[in-house]
Protein backbone atom coordinates (compact mmCIF):
# COMPACT_ATOMS: atom_id res chain seq x y z
CA UNK A 1 0.00 0.00 0.00
CA UNK A 2 1.23 3.46 -0.87
CA UNK A 3 2.51 5.62 1.94
CA UNK A 4 0.44 8.81 1.79
CA UNK A 5 2.85 10.71 4.02
CA UNK A 6 0.15 11.23 6.67
CA UNK A 7 0.45 10.21 10.32
CA UNK A 8 -1.97 7.33 9.75
CA UNK A 9 -5.10 6.54 7.82
CA UNK A 10 -8.34 8.19 8.89
CA UNK A 11 -10.37 5.39 7.39
CA UNK A 12 -9.24 1.99 6.23
CA UNK A 13 -10.78 -1.13 4.80
CA UNK A 14 -8.94 -4.37 5.42
CA UNK A 15 -9.53 -7.53 3.37
CA UNK A 16 -13.22 -6.82 2.87
CA UNK A 17 -15.39 -9.60 1.53
CA UNK A 18 -19.01 -8.94 0.61
CA UNK A 19 -21.38 -11.12 -1.37
CA UNK A 20 -24.72 -10.06 -2.80
CA UNK A 21 -26.71 -13.32 -2.99
CA UNK A 22 -24.43 -15.65 -4.92
CA UNK A 23 -22.45 -12.82 -6.50
CA UNK A 24 -19.17 -11.84 -4.84
CA UNK A 25 -18.84 -8.02 -4.94
CA UNK A 26 -15.68 -7.70 -2.83
CA UNK A 27 -13.07 -10.44 -2.60
CA UNK A 28 -10.50 -9.16 -0.12
CA UNK A 29 -10.42 -5.41 -0.86
CA UNK A 30 -8.09 -3.20 1.20
CA UNK A 31 -7.86 0.58 1.05
CA UNK A 32 -6.69 3.48 3.22
CA UNK A 33 -7.83 7.09 3.18
CA UNK A 34 -5.64 9.72 4.83
CA UNK A 35 -7.00 12.81 6.64
CA UNK A 36 -7.94 15.46 4.06
CA UNK A 37 -7.03 13.16 1.17
CA UNK A 38 -9.14 13.00 -1.99
CA UNK A 39 -9.00 9.42 -3.23
CA UNK A 40 -10.61 8.19 -6.43
CA UNK A 41 -11.75 4.58 -6.69
CA UNK A 42 -12.23 3.61 -10.32
CA UNK A 43 -13.18 0.42 -12.08
CA UNK A 44 -15.66 -1.03 -14.55
CA UNK A 45 -19.33 -1.58 -13.72
CA UNK A 46 -19.60 -4.50 -11.35
CA UNK A 47 -16.02 -4.23 -10.11
CA UNK A 48 -17.29 -3.66 -6.56
CA UNK A 49 -16.47 0.02 -6.12
CA UNK A 50 -19.90 1.11 -4.87
CA UNK A 51 -20.04 -1.83 -2.45
CA UNK A 52 -16.62 -0.81 -1.13
CA UNK A 53 -17.91 2.75 -0.57
CA UNK A 54 -21.03 1.44 1.17
CA UNK A 55 -18.93 -0.73 3.50
CA UNK A 56 -16.51 2.11 4.30
CA UNK A 57 -19.38 4.55 4.94
CA UNK A 58 -21.04 2.10 7.34
CA UNK A 59 -24.10 1.79 5.10
CA UNK A 60 -23.66 -1.98 4.77
CA UNK A 61 -21.60 -4.36 6.88
CA UNK A 62 -18.96 -6.55 5.22
CA UNK A 63 -19.23 -10.35 5.47
CA UNK A 64 -15.53 -10.56 6.36
CA UNK A 65 -12.70 -8.12 7.04
CA UNK A 66 -12.76 -4.88 9.00
CA UNK A 67 -13.34 -1.17 8.54
CA UNK A 68 -11.44 1.15 10.89
CA UNK A 69 -12.35 4.80 11.32
CA UNK A 70 -10.26 7.06 13.55
CA UNK A 71 -8.84 3.99 15.29
CA UNK A 72 -12.25 2.34 15.93
CA UNK A 73 -13.82 -0.73 14.32
CA UNK A 74 -16.66 0.75 12.30
CA UNK A 75 -18.08 -2.61 11.26
CA UNK A 76 -18.62 -3.58 14.91
CA UNK A 77 -20.42 -0.41 16.01
CA UNK A 78 -24.06 -0.88 17.02
CA UNK A 79 -26.56 0.52 14.50
CA UNK A 80 -27.42 3.52 16.70
CA UNK A 81 -23.79 4.67 16.98
CA UNK A 82 -23.27 4.01 13.29
CA UNK A 83 -26.22 6.13 12.29
CA UNK A 84 -25.01 8.95 14.58
CA UNK A 85 -21.58 8.78 12.95
CA UNK A 86 -23.11 8.87 9.48
CA UNK A 87 -25.01 12.00 10.52
CA UNK A 88 -22.10 13.89 12.10
CA UNK A 89 -18.78 12.50 10.87
CA UNK A 90 -19.65 11.51 7.32
CA UNK A 91 -21.30 13.18 4.34
CA UNK A 92 -22.69 11.16 1.46
CA UNK A 93 -23.50 12.17 -2.12
CA UNK A 94 -24.92 9.83 -4.75
CA UNK A 95 -25.24 10.00 -8.53
CA UNK A 96 -28.64 11.61 -8.20
CA UNK A 97 -28.44 14.18 -5.40
CA UNK A 98 -31.39 12.62 -3.52
CA UNK A 99 -32.62 16.00 -2.35
CA UNK A 100 -36.02 16.18 -0.67
CA UNK A 101 -38.28 17.28 -3.55
CA UNK A 102 -40.72 19.27 -1.38
CA UNK A 103 -37.99 21.42 0.19
CA UNK A 104 -36.14 24.43 -1.23
CA UNK A 105 -32.38 24.24 -1.78
CA UNK A 106 -31.90 26.29 1.41
CA UNK A 107 -34.00 23.88 3.49
CA UNK A 108 -32.38 20.84 1.89
CA UNK A 109 -28.91 22.11 2.82
CA UNK A 110 -30.05 23.16 6.33
CA UNK A 111 -31.73 19.79 6.96
CA UNK A 112 -28.81 17.95 8.66
CA UNK A 113 -28.39 20.87 11.09
CA UNK A 114 -32.14 21.10 11.77
CA UNK A 115 -32.23 17.35 12.49
CA UNK A 116 -29.33 17.82 14.91
CA UNK A 117 -31.28 20.49 16.81
CA UNK A 118 -29.74 23.70 15.44
CA UNK A 119 -32.16 26.65 15.47
CA UNK A 120 -33.81 27.46 12.13
CA UNK A 121 -32.25 30.95 11.70
CA UNK A 122 -28.78 29.62 12.52
CA UNK A 123 -29.19 26.58 10.22
CA UNK A 124 -30.38 28.83 7.39
CA UNK A 125 -27.46 31.21 7.87
CA UNK A 126 -24.99 28.33 7.57
CA UNK A 127 -26.90 26.82 4.65
CA UNK A 128 -26.61 30.14 2.77
CA UNK A 129 -22.89 30.17 3.46
CA UNK A 130 -22.47 26.62 2.09
CA UNK A 131 -24.59 27.29 -0.98
CA UNK A 132 -22.37 30.31 -1.62
CA UNK A 133 -19.23 28.17 -1.40
CA UNK A 134 -20.66 25.96 -4.14
CA UNK A 135 -21.60 28.96 -6.28
CA UNK A 136 -25.26 28.11 -5.70
CA UNK A 137 -26.45 31.03 -3.56
CA UNK A 138 -28.99 32.08 -6.24
CA UNK A 139 -30.66 28.65 -5.96
CA UNK A 140 -31.75 29.07 -2.33
CA UNK A 141 -35.47 29.42 -3.10
CA UNK A 142 -35.64 26.73 -5.82
CA UNK A 143 -37.00 23.23 -5.32
CA UNK A 144 -35.09 20.26 -6.82
CA UNK A 145 -37.60 19.96 -9.70
CA UNK A 146 -36.68 23.50 -10.78
CA UNK A 147 -32.92 22.83 -10.88
CA UNK A 148 -30.58 21.41 -13.53
CA UNK A 149 -28.64 18.25 -12.67
CA UNK A 150 -25.49 20.24 -11.90
CA UNK A 151 -27.35 22.68 -9.66
CA UNK A 152 -28.99 19.82 -7.75
CA UNK A 153 -25.62 18.11 -7.30
CA UNK A 154 -23.94 21.28 -6.00
CA UNK A 155 -26.83 21.65 -3.55
CA UNK A 156 -26.38 18.02 -2.47
CA UNK A 157 -22.65 18.63 -1.90
CA UNK A 158 -23.39 21.70 0.22
CA UNK A 159 -25.75 19.52 2.29
CA UNK A 160 -23.10 16.80 2.63
CA UNK A 161 -20.48 19.26 3.90
CA UNK A 162 -22.58 21.50 6.18
CA UNK A 163 -22.02 19.38 9.30
CA UNK A 164 -18.24 19.64 8.88
CA UNK A 165 -17.72 15.91 8.25
CA UNK A 166 -14.25 14.40 8.26
CA UNK A 167 -15.09 12.24 5.26
CA UNK A 168 -17.37 12.78 2.27
CA UNK A 169 -18.36 9.68 0.30
CA UNK A 170 -19.25 10.54 -3.29
CA UNK A 171 -20.66 7.70 -5.42
CA UNK A 172 -20.57 8.68 -9.13
CA UNK A 173 -21.33 12.34 -8.29
CA UNK A 174 -20.97 13.36 -11.95
CA UNK A 175 -22.55 10.25 -13.46
CA UNK A 176 -25.72 12.04 -14.58
CA UNK A 177 -24.12 15.34 -15.65
CA UNK A 178 -22.85 16.76 -18.94
CA UNK A 179 -19.13 17.51 -19.11
CA UNK A 180 -19.33 21.22 -18.27
CA UNK A 181 -21.65 20.66 -15.28
CA UNK A 182 -19.40 17.77 -14.15
CA UNK A 183 -16.39 20.08 -14.28
CA UNK A 184 -18.16 22.75 -12.19
CA UNK A 185 -19.31 20.20 -9.60
CA UNK A 186 -15.88 18.58 -9.28
CA UNK A 187 -14.01 21.89 -9.16
CA UNK A 188 -16.32 23.03 -6.35
CA UNK A 189 -16.06 19.73 -4.47
CA UNK A 190 -12.25 19.50 -4.67
CA UNK A 191 -11.70 23.14 -3.72
CA UNK A 192 -14.18 23.12 -0.84
CA UNK A 193 -12.98 19.80 0.56
CA UNK A 194 -9.35 20.99 0.46
CA UNK A 195 -10.25 24.28 2.18
CA UNK A 196 -12.21 22.44 4.89
CA UNK A 197 -9.60 19.64 5.24
CA UNK A 198 -12.31 17.06 4.48
CA UNK A 199 -11.25 13.70 3.07
CA UNK A 200 -13.20 12.48 0.04
CA UNK A 201 -13.71 8.92 -1.12
CA UNK A 202 -14.75 9.39 -4.72
CA UNK A 203 -16.16 6.44 -6.63
CA UNK A 204 -16.28 7.00 -10.39
CA UNK A 205 -15.92 5.19 -13.70
CA UNK A 206 -14.83 8.46 -15.33
CA UNK A 207 -11.11 9.27 -15.57
CA UNK A 208 -11.76 13.01 -15.93
CA UNK A 209 -13.59 12.99 -12.60
CA UNK A 210 -10.90 10.81 -11.01
CA UNK A 211 -8.26 13.34 -12.09
CA UNK A 212 -9.56 15.77 -9.43
CA UNK A 213 -8.32 13.36 -6.75
CA UNK A 214 -4.86 13.29 -5.16
CA UNK A 215 -4.57 9.58 -5.86
CA UNK A 216 -6.38 6.87 -7.76
CA UNK A 217 -6.83 3.18 -7.10
CA UNK A 218 -8.59 0.78 -9.43
CA UNK A 219 -10.84 -2.09 -8.50
CA UNK A 220 -10.84 -5.26 -10.56
CA UNK A 221 -13.25 -8.07 -9.73
CA UNK A 222 -13.64 -6.99 -6.12
CA UNK A 223 -9.94 -6.51 -5.39
CA UNK A 224 -8.02 -3.22 -5.20
CA UNK A 225 -5.25 -2.83 -7.76
CA UNK A 226 -2.60 -0.33 -6.63
CA UNK A 227 -2.33 2.97 -8.47
CA UNK A 228 1.32 2.63 -9.34
CA UNK A 229 2.26 -0.80 -10.70
CA UNK A 230 5.79 -0.35 -9.34
CA UNK A 231 4.28 -0.46 -5.85
CA UNK A 232 2.17 -3.54 -6.44
CA UNK A 233 2.93 -6.65 -4.47
CA UNK A 234 3.72 -9.45 -6.87
CA UNK A 235 1.07 -12.22 -6.76
Amino acid at each position, binding site marked *: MKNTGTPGPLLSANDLVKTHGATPALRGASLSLGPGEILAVTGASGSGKSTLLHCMAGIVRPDEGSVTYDGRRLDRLPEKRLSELRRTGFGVVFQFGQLVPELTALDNVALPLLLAGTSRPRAHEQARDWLERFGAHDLAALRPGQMSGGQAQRTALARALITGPKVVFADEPTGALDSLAAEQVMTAL*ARTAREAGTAVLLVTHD*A*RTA*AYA*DREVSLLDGVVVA*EDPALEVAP
Partner: protein
Amino acid sequence: MSTRHILLGLLATGPSHGYDLKRRHDERFPQARPLAYGQVYTTLQRLVRDGLAEVEGTDSDGGPERTLYHVTEAGARELSRWAAEIAPPAPFVTNEIFAKVVVAILSGGDPAAYLRAQRAAHMRRMRELTAVTSDPGSDLATVLSADFALNHLDADLRWMTTTAARLTTLTAEVDAA
Protein backbone atom coordinates in the same frame (compact mmCIF):
# COMPACT_ATOMS: atom_id res chain seq x y z
CA MET B 1 0.88 21.69 -35.33
CA SER B 2 2.21 23.89 -38.12
CA THR B 3 4.61 26.43 -36.61
CA ARG B 4 4.80 28.09 -40.02
CA HIS B 5 1.06 28.82 -40.08
CA ILE B 6 0.87 29.77 -36.41
CA LEU B 7 3.62 32.38 -36.93
CA LEU B 8 1.90 33.57 -40.09
CA GLY B 9 -1.32 33.97 -38.05
CA LEU B 10 0.47 35.97 -35.36
CA LEU B 11 2.05 38.14 -38.08
CA ALA B 12 -1.39 38.76 -39.58
CA THR B 13 -2.22 41.10 -36.68
CA GLY B 14 0.53 43.52 -37.86
CA PRO B 15 4.27 43.78 -38.49
CA SER B 16 6.30 42.06 -35.82
CA HIS B 17 9.83 40.80 -35.10
CA GLY B 18 11.02 37.33 -34.13
CA TYR B 19 11.40 37.94 -30.41
CA ASP B 20 7.89 39.38 -30.15
CA LEU B 21 6.42 36.49 -32.17
CA LYS B 22 8.05 33.92 -29.89
CA ARG B 23 6.74 35.71 -26.78
CA ARG B 24 3.20 35.97 -28.17
CA HIS B 25 3.23 32.33 -29.31
CA ASP B 26 4.22 31.08 -25.86
CA GLU B 27 1.54 33.25 -24.23
CA ARG B 28 -1.23 32.31 -26.66
CA PHE B 29 -0.50 28.54 -26.63
CA PRO B 30 0.57 27.89 -23.05
CA GLN B 31 0.21 24.09 -23.26
CA ALA B 32 2.35 23.87 -26.41
CA ARG B 33 6.09 23.45 -26.22
CA PRO B 34 7.72 26.93 -26.08
CA LEU B 35 9.24 27.88 -29.43
CA ALA B 36 13.02 28.04 -29.70
CA TYR B 37 14.38 31.34 -31.07
CA GLY B 38 16.31 29.45 -33.75
CA GLN B 39 13.10 27.80 -34.94
CA VAL B 40 11.32 31.18 -35.12
CA TYR B 41 14.07 32.81 -37.23
CA THR B 42 14.43 29.80 -39.54
CA THR B 43 10.67 29.70 -40.08
CA LEU B 44 10.56 33.46 -40.80
CA GLN B 45 13.33 33.09 -43.41
CA ARG B 46 11.40 30.28 -45.09
CA LEU B 47 8.20 32.34 -45.12
CA VAL B 48 10.14 35.15 -46.87
CA ARG B 49 11.71 32.64 -49.29
CA ASP B 50 8.25 31.31 -50.21
CA GLY B 51 6.79 34.80 -50.69
CA LEU B 52 4.41 34.49 -47.74
CA ALA B 53 6.11 37.21 -45.65
CA GLU B 54 8.37 40.17 -46.36
CA VAL B 55 10.88 42.19 -44.43
CA GLU B 56 9.29 45.50 -43.51
CA GLY B 57 12.39 47.19 -42.13
CA THR B 58 14.27 47.30 -38.87
CA ASP B 59 13.30 48.55 -35.46
CA SER B 60 15.90 49.24 -32.79
CA ASP B 61 13.64 50.75 -30.10
CA GLY B 62 16.71 51.82 -28.14
CA GLY B 63 18.08 48.23 -28.04
CA PRO B 64 19.63 45.90 -30.59
CA GLU B 65 18.35 46.23 -34.14
CA ARG B 66 15.45 43.85 -34.96
CA THR B 67 14.05 42.86 -38.33
CA LEU B 68 10.32 43.52 -38.72
CA TYR B 69 8.24 41.20 -40.91
CA HIS B 70 4.76 41.49 -42.39
CA VAL B 71 2.42 39.09 -44.19
CA THR B 72 2.17 39.32 -48.00
CA GLU B 73 -1.11 38.88 -49.93
CA ALA B 74 0.00 35.35 -50.82
CA GLY B 75 0.67 34.76 -47.12
CA ALA B 76 -2.83 35.95 -46.18
CA ARG B 77 -4.35 33.61 -48.81
CA GLU B 78 -2.28 30.66 -47.57
CA LEU B 79 -3.33 31.42 -43.98
CA SER B 80 -7.04 31.46 -44.95
CA ARG B 81 -6.62 28.17 -46.82
CA TRP B 82 -4.87 26.47 -43.88
CA ALA B 83 -7.27 27.83 -41.26
CA ALA B 84 -10.28 26.46 -43.17
CA GLU B 85 -8.66 23.08 -43.85
CA ILE B 86 -10.24 20.22 -41.89
CA ALA B 87 -7.75 18.24 -39.79
CA PRO B 88 -7.69 14.51 -40.69
CA PRO B 89 -10.20 12.91 -38.29
CA ALA B 90 -8.29 9.66 -37.75
CA PRO B 91 -4.56 10.32 -37.61
CA PHE B 92 -3.85 7.91 -34.75
CA VAL B 93 -4.95 4.57 -36.18
CA THR B 94 -1.59 3.01 -35.44
CA ASN B 95 -0.23 4.50 -32.28
CA GLU B 96 2.75 3.86 -30.05
CA ILE B 97 0.72 2.37 -27.20
CA PHE B 98 -0.92 -0.19 -29.48
CA ALA B 99 2.47 -1.04 -31.02
CA LYS B 100 3.96 -1.64 -27.56
CA VAL B 101 1.08 -3.90 -26.55
CA VAL B 102 1.60 -6.03 -29.67
CA VAL B 103 5.38 -6.11 -29.18
CA ALA B 104 4.87 -7.15 -25.53
CA ILE B 105 2.71 -10.06 -26.72
CA LEU B 106 5.20 -11.04 -29.45
CA SER B 107 8.18 -10.96 -27.08
CA GLY B 108 6.46 -12.80 -24.22
CA GLY B 109 6.26 -9.63 -22.09
CA ASP B 110 3.39 -8.50 -19.85
CA PRO B 111 1.07 -6.27 -21.89
CA ALA B 112 -1.38 -5.93 -18.97
CA ALA B 113 1.37 -4.56 -16.69
CA TYR B 114 2.44 -2.17 -19.44
CA LEU B 115 -1.13 -0.90 -19.88
CA ARG B 116 -1.48 -0.38 -16.10
CA ALA B 117 1.78 1.60 -16.00
CA GLN B 118 0.71 3.64 -19.01
CA ARG B 119 -2.67 4.30 -17.40
CA ALA B 120 -0.96 5.54 -14.21
CA ALA B 121 1.21 7.91 -16.28
CA HIS B 122 -1.84 9.21 -18.14
CA MET B 123 -3.68 9.75 -14.84
CA ARG B 124 -0.73 11.69 -13.39
CA ARG B 125 -0.72 13.99 -16.42
CA MET B 126 -4.51 14.37 -16.21
CA ARG B 127 -4.21 15.39 -12.54
CA GLU B 128 -1.67 18.08 -13.50
CA LEU B 129 -3.92 19.38 -16.29
CA THR B 130 -7.00 19.27 -14.04
CA ALA B 131 -5.13 21.43 -11.52
CA VAL B 132 -4.68 23.94 -14.36
CA THR B 133 -8.34 23.86 -15.46
CA SER B 134 -9.65 24.23 -11.89
CA ASP B 135 -7.25 27.02 -10.89
CA PRO B 136 -9.37 30.21 -10.61
CA GLY B 137 -6.29 32.18 -11.80
CA SER B 138 -6.12 30.37 -15.17
CA ASP B 139 -7.31 32.37 -18.19
CA LEU B 140 -9.79 30.80 -20.61
CA ALA B 141 -7.22 30.12 -23.35
CA THR B 142 -5.13 28.14 -20.88
CA VAL B 143 -8.17 26.25 -19.59
CA LEU B 144 -9.37 25.34 -23.10
CA SER B 145 -5.92 24.24 -24.15
CA ALA B 146 -5.58 21.99 -21.08
CA ASP B 147 -9.14 20.75 -21.65
CA PHE B 148 -8.22 19.70 -25.20
CA ALA B 149 -5.32 17.63 -23.86
CA LEU B 150 -7.52 16.17 -21.08
CA ASN B 151 -10.13 14.96 -23.55
CA HIS B 152 -7.50 13.27 -25.70
CA LEU B 153 -5.85 11.58 -22.72
CA ASP B 154 -9.30 10.44 -21.59
CA ALA B 155 -9.91 8.91 -25.03
CA ASP B 156 -6.57 7.07 -24.77
CA LEU B 157 -7.59 5.76 -21.34
CA ARG B 158 -10.91 4.44 -22.62
CA TRP B 159 -9.08 2.67 -25.42
CA MET B 160 -6.57 1.20 -22.93
CA THR B 161 -9.39 -0.07 -20.69
CA THR B 162 -11.10 -1.80 -23.62
CA THR B 163 -7.81 -3.22 -24.84
CA ALA B 164 -6.90 -4.53 -21.37
CA ALA B 165 -10.25 -6.34 -21.28
CA ARG B 166 -9.55 -7.94 -24.68
CA LEU B 167 -5.92 -8.96 -24.15
CA THR B 168 -6.67 -12.68 -24.11
CA THR B 169 -8.32 -12.53 -27.54
CA LEU B 170 -5.65 -10.20 -28.91
CA THR B 171 -2.86 -12.48 -27.64
CA ALA B 172 -4.48 -15.48 -29.35
CA GLU B 173 -4.81 -13.50 -32.58
CA VAL B 174 -1.23 -12.18 -32.51
CA ASP B 175 0.19 -15.62 -31.63
CA ALA B 176 -1.81 -17.29 -34.42
CA ALA B 177 -0.63 -14.85 -37.10
